[in-house]
């Protein structure tokens, strides 16, 4: 029984600790905002220049001058600050954020990731992803374990142009959770979705991992 998107996001949310400053990417990572553990204080950053993201607005609160990095309407909280794009990425590049959670097209067994371009096909750009993965001490990737055609996304080497070299610390897929220490060595399997066997996981992964 693979985990669904909500369950993947909820699993990632469990990793966050009281007082952390966290950047959430678009897609499944966005769901993490609504699944934060009770009783802990997490400040969400949006790289377009906002520290302290609030919930989505009610229809009468919509403000076109107030959007997140996914260009969705959002609200502010007491304690929110607005900054320029340069300041926003200084926070990221300077290593001041605690974690970033983002989606990916591929993750390799050595922690490389590729999530920004499929040459000749999808040419959208990297946005802030390269800055986020190279500047944040904890990078958590959420993605489906396999592509729609069934091919593995957890690979020996990335086949797509890289977003960052050796940057991924934790991988949560619909089938399992993997972690690695200090960006050295292989990922270690720490959790499997219900009724997913080790054999099945290895079959669906091109990457080597320890267990």
């Amino acid at each position, binding site marked *: 029984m693979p985990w669904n998107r909500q369950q993947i996001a909820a699993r990632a949310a469990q990793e966050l600790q009281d007082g952390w400053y966290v950047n959430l990417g678009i897609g499944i990572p966005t769901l993490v905002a609504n699944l934060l553990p009770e009783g802990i204080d997490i400040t969400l950053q949006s790289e377009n220049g906002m520290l302290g993201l609030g919930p989505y*607005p009610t229809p009468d609160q919509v403000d076109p001058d107030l*959007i997140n990095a996914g260009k969705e309407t959002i609200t502010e909280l007491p304690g929110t600050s607005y900054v320029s794009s340069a300041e*926003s990425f200084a926070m*990221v*590049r300077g290593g001041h954020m605690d974690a970033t959670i983002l989606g990916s097209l591929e993750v390799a067994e050595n922690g490389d990731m590729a999530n920004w371009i499929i040459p000749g096909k999808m*040419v959208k*750009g990297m946005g802030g992803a390269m800055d986020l993965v190279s500047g944040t001490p904890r990078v958590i990737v959420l993605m489906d374990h396999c592509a729609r055609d069934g091919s593995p996304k957890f690979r020996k080497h990335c086949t797509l142009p890289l*977003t960052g*070299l050796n940057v991924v610390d934790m991988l949560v897929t619909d089938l399992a959770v993997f972690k690695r220490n200090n960006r050295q060595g292989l990922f270690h399997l720490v959790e499997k979705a219900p009724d997913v066997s080790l054999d099945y996981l290895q079959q669906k992964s091109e990457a080597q991992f320890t267990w």
Partner: protein
Amino acid sequence: MANKKYDTAQAALDGLLFDGMTIAVGGFGLCGLPETLIIALRDSGVRDLTVISNNAGVDDWGLGLLLQTRQISRMVSSYVGENKEFERQHLSGEINLEFCPQGTLAERIRAGGAGIPAFYTRTGAGTVVGEGKEERIFDGERYIMETALKADLALVKAWRGDDKGNLLYRKTARNFNPVVATCSRMTIAEVEEFVPAGAIPADAVHTPSVYIRRMTLARINEKRVEKLVTRTKD
């Protein structure tokens, strides 16, 4: 006090435009865009532009308007995913695109405005972004050299501008505007409201007046929302 105010966007652009020029434009997505100046730029017919801007607008708004008319020949951006016409022109080779990571883009513009010709960053090291760039190791980590960006003309959008040219931005409409304002010797601010000098508290000024040469009132304030997401009241 020197008068920096121009009655129309067209008047503010008068005498500044030439084919092949480089223009930096503030905004993130459709938020904090100098909408009136972009339309005046389109109507001027100036061509073969290099545009430095985080995004390329959408098909029928923002910088997308200048793509429709083929006035842009080169763009430096981090993300163009909301614009199908851009993707088409790029894939067919009609437009030259330099992808630049968003934080690196902001810093290259900041550096351009601050007289710093280049800097080193980890962002993009070991990826296609680092190809052909000088690489150095600091404290055991790979860094690539990125060069500053400057523009012949910079266009920004602010919430309030005072008589002196000091600017205040509003919420996430600030984004790239403060750095874009610095990267040219000729920056025009499109403001939603003119206020007297002193009305923006000196401690609260976001862009000091030295960076602003000309100002004009925002006559188009559509402020389109790209992704309207709401919740029901609790």
